[in-house]
């Protein structure tokens, strides 16, 4: 039998393959690691894996939600364990093959140097990756898991157990009348909102940046500072102040500004279309400073020679903008523009704080300005439909991720060099 096969088989018990290859220290590390893995995680794996399969069998002893969380942790730990196990097998096999080929396995010093030199990025990135798993991956897995359960008011711990129900909740979205009809209404407005609000804030930001960047303009610093101010005030304060300004009967916009121009009061908060317009304008106001700042930075980095050459060729200002400035901005800004779109798609704050998703619309469960996230929030808070909310969140994420990916692929910014 060849060394590699023998080493592979021996390392079914981690470490023994390395011992066979006479790599004592490494073998010991694997062995101790494995032993401590099982000692430390024994309870977690035991309870978690049992819990995630059954979600509890007895009330009040079992709390399905905690079991689910424990189970997901157990799965994460198991996957990490299996990964180390895989490294162990691979290492034994590789060194066995080296011996088959008549070479000597690496000495301890070589191994250390290998680890430090080649593995350096991994060593440095390791801790943050570890935190990432628990701070990002774990909650995502948890909410995905919830979508496949029947967690709602009537199935909530500690009184009741939760069960896995597969795709039932997803089926419900498209079969239960009050959700189905509302879902597409809300989706339509969400898309319109995302496109209009993001486009407005991006184009406003770029436009102002280009204007302020003109050479002959004086007081540039002052103007820039003023233009960044909307960004400096916390968003929720701005939104609440705007909500007051837009008030139909007492707001300054109707009473002072529009009245000054002799325009009749506009039902900003009680008519859906006017509310939508108000929201888009507010988001433009809130969102443009960031784009403005970034664009200003990009403009500084466009080589002056390009403009000089263009001037010699007799290009107009607009031709220069269209053929030099704009393309340069787009290349540098594409990722930022995409994040503006995804941000607005899930821009809960502005919708919720401005008018609570209102005004009410006859015949739907959502208000006139509710976007998907704020609608999901209402559903969960009002009737404790946790699994439904989780399922909708998944659909929403798929939508956003798909669009973002498509955009990323179309722009050059993310191509690896």
């Amino acid at each position, binding site marked *: 039998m060849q060394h590699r096969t023998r080493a592979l088989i021996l390392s079914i018990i981690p470490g023994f393959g390395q011992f066979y290859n006479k790599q004592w220290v490494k073998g010991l590390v694997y062995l101790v690691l494995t032993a401590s893995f099982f000692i430390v995680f024994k309870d977690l794996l035991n309870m978690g894996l049992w819990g995630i399969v059954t979600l509890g069998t007895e009330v009040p002893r079992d709390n399905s939600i905690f079991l689910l969380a424990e189970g997901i942790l157990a799965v994460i730990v198991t996957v990490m364990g299996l990964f180390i196990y895989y490294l162990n097998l691979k290492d034994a096999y590789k060194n066995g093959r080296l011996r088959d080929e008549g070479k000597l396995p690496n000495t301890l010093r070589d191994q250390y140097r290998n680890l430090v030199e080649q593995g350096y990025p991994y060593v440095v990135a390791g801790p943050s990756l570890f935190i990432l798993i628990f701070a990002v991956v774990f909650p995502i897995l948890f909410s995905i898991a919830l979508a496949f359960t029947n967690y709602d*008011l009537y199935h909530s*711990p500690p009184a009741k157990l939760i069960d896995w129900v597969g795709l039932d909740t997803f089926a419900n979205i498209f079969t239960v009348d009050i959700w189905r009809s509302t879902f597409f209404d809300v989706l339509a407005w969400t898309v319109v909102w995302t496109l209009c609000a993001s486009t407005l804030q991006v184009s406003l930001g770029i436009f102002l940046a280009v204007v302020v960047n003109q050479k002959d303009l004086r007081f540039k610093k002052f103007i820039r500072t003023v233009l960044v101010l909307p960004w400096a005030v916390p968003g929720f304060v701005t939104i609440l102040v705007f909500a007051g300004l837009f008030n139909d009967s007492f707001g300054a916009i109707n009473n002072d500004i529009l009245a000054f121009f002799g325009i009749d009061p506009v039902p900003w908060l*009680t008519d859906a279309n006017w509310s939508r317009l108000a929201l888009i304008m507010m988001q433009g106001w809130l969102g443009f400073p960031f784009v403005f700042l970034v664009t200003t930075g990009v403009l500084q980095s466009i080589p002056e020679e390009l403009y000089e050459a263009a001037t010699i060729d007799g290009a107009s200002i607009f031709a220069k903008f269209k053929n030099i400035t704009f393309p340069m901005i787009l290349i540098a800004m594409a990722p930022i523009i995409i994040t503006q779109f995804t941000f607005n798609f899930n821009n809960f704050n502005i919708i919720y704080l401005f008018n609570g998703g*209102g005004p*009410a619309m006859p015949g739907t*469960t959502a208000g006139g300005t509710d976007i998907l996230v704020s609608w999901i929030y209402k559903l969960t808070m009002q009737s404790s439909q946790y699994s439904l909310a989780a399922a909708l969140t998944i659909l929403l994420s798929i939508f956003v991720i798909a669009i973002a990916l498509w955009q990323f692929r179309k722009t050059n910014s993310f191509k690896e060099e």
Partner: protein
Amino acid sequence: MKNIKKILGIFSLLALVFALVACGPQEDSGQATGDEGKKEDNNKEYDLLVWEDVEKSEGIADAVAKFEEENDVKVKVVEKAYAQQIEDLRLDGPGGTGPDVFTMPGDQIGTAVVEGLLKELNVGEDVTSIYTEAAMNSQTVDGKVYGLPKAVETTMLFYNKDIVSEDELPTTLDGWYDLSKELTDGENFGLLALFDQIYYANSVLSGYGGYIFGQDENGNYIPTDLGLNNEGAIEGANQIQKFYAEKLFPSGIIGEQGIQVLDSLFSEGKAAAVISGPWNLGPYEEAGIDYGVVKLPELANGENMSAFVGVKSYNVSAYSKNAELAEKLVVFLANEENSKTRYELTKEVPAVAALADDPAVTESEAAQAVAEQSQFSELMPNIPEMNSVWDPADAALQTIATGKAEPKEALDQAVETIKGSIEAANSSK
């Protein structure tokens, strides 16, 4: 290389099977008791944890001290926002840091019982009979008692004495309608109310015979019997719409921000009267308004406007490790003597029936108004199905207020939506 992958696959599968075989609940119960022992050690510094409403703990300080002395125990009182307590209990309870005794809104008792957050109290007739019937009903689900009432509140009418004198105060809603017409000039207003919310609008709707849920002979709510679109409710909605259509209620008090606008209009002395609750007694006084408080006016058909009675209660958490002692504390805190002390210190009207005639209560105008209004009031339904009512009902009333829909179609639509929502929520029951 293909081979190695296959072998690896088999190994990982084996590893998984090994891991799963070892799993089971047996060890769990042993573990749980171990944990319990540990927790009790940690909590040695007190025997009971009480969550009290913010700025209300002075009301029970003496009673708690007495209870500690009598029973030789240590009770810790922590203040926590009243509406937040049940939310926090959901996580703190199982986490072991939850309270033994806490306070919550009576209309959420049904939901909390379904979730299993409350411990049933084993109290007899002798304890429950001292409270008003409505208040006690809010604590009862399927004949079982889950808490004892601490305070009641209803909406009432606040009027600005500088604008309307006590003598010429209209006693009917129509009277207010006429007065409002006189006073309203775009800047100043007569009576204002948030009739675009079912919590307030129900006062009118139910006066004309509308109701949210019908009740069977035992007083249990029937979730399938919705009376929000019956003739009475539609008549009531017509009355409500009148105020908005005539611009007596400005459209600025409709919707999410309406409550702030209404409060500031009254605080600035621009509204002659508003319908609001006891929570505004302090703020309006601070605003320097010389106001009076009376029960709600009568409707055109001679009925009194009703109001939702909100009951605040003391309840025992299902997670309490010391439930018997906790129950004892609840009974003690809610007894007549301590209710009176608490009222004197916190000004929250108690639910003890005998105290309604007590000079301490009758002396106060506000307490008197609440007590009087309570007679014409109804309980906020405490069944979980009520959660499905608020949003659609508010939405319908809002469209009525803005004139986007006629009362009948709006209310029909609301009932349709509520039914659908209840059905959807119950589909997995």
